[in-house]
């Protein structure tokens, strides 16, 4: 850029041959694009940028406040219905708990009558069940013990008792309910002379399939 102003450095370098009467401060700015233009442009641009930023922020705040007002209106409008729904829901939960208590009280993987019916249906002719002992108080270790007698010669009777255990193990319903079906004892019965046996059936713990 051309300028009629002379810097102070030049003044120091070249000695003046006549007195310099110029008042540099008062001389007009003769640059092609005046410095004031740059200053004004920068100042206006900064002010505009800040104004836009503030405007955007205020618009965002206003928008949020409007949405908050809408949400509050929605809350106020539905609050009565909501309170009623919560009250009914609490009643429902309380009643459901009562029904659940009754359902859990009677719940059992297999009823005693169903168990006995299965025994009746699977019992071979040579086997007689003398007693059934069901221990059901502890839900974690419910078990049944069968005691009976096997007719016939002892060598065959022993095989019949084992075959009966296998029959029980193979029964789909019993397989679903019991974890273990084990012969606890097979021995001659002193009173009858027949072979007596004891089979233990342990229910699967709750939740195990």
């Amino acid at each position, binding site marked *: 850029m051309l300028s009629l102003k002379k810097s102070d450095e030049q003044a120091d370098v070249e000695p003046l041959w006549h007195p310099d009467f110029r008042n540099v401060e008062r001389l007009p700015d003769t640059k092609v694009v005046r410095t004031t233009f740059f200053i004004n442009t920068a*100042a206006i641009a*900064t002010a505009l940028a800040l104004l836009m930023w503030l405007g955007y922020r205020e618009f965002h705040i206003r928008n949020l406040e409007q949405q908050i007002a809408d949400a509050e209106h929605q809350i106020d409008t539905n609050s009565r219905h909501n309170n009623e729904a919560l009250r*009914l829901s609490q009643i429902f939960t309380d009643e459901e708990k009562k*029904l659940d208590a009754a359902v859990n009280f*009677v719940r059992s993987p297999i009823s005693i009558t169903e168990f006995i019916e299965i025994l009746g249906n699977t019992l071979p002719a040579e086997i007689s069940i003398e007693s*059934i002992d069901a221990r059901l108080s502890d839900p974690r270790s419910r078990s049944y013990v069968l005691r009976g007698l096997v007719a016939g010669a002892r060598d065959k009777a022993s095989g019949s008792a084992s075959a009966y255990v296998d029959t029980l193990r193979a029964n789909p319903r019993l397989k679903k309910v019991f974890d273990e079906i084990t012969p606890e004892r097979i021995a001659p019965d002193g009173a009858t002379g027949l072979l007596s046996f004891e089979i233990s059936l342990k229910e699967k713990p709750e939740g195990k399939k």
Partner: protein
Amino acid sequence: MTTADIVASFKKQPVAFVCGLLCLILGGLLYFRSGVVDTDQADFDAKSAQAAKIVANVSASKNLAEQVKEIQAATKEMEGRLLQSGQLGINLQYFYKLETETEVKLLDVRPNGISKTSKAAYIPVPFSVSVQGPYKQLMLFLSRLENGPHFCHFSSATFTKLAGGDAASQNMMTLTLNLELLGQP
């Protein structure tokens, strides 16, 4: 900087001076309003979540009143099937009635001690029952207990063939039960 200097600067660069002043004011406003967006956003998030929950509650509860009526009726019916733990005579009558209906011989029926520690709405009322009869009658007795008007839970059950060689006792069995019937305190 004196007032005269400020006035001189203003006269020299009036636009820049006004813009600078405006920038100062805008900067101050931006600074002081900077927390409002975060506060409003948090407020909006909380309120919109609450509103959505309420709307969901209201829309999900359209048939709740009828459902509550239904479940209350079911509970009332269920409570009608509960024993009153204090009514010993009436409770024992249940077993005597079963004895008559199923034609078994009631050897013994005894109420056991009720646990008082439980604060539940319903309590198990325990009984020891011993009956004798043919297999079919005993099964009928057991079935009536399982599917009868009262909620029954068996703690233990022992079926034993009656000892004895005579024809009458050949088919007879004894059933000893420890059971609980659900009742109200």
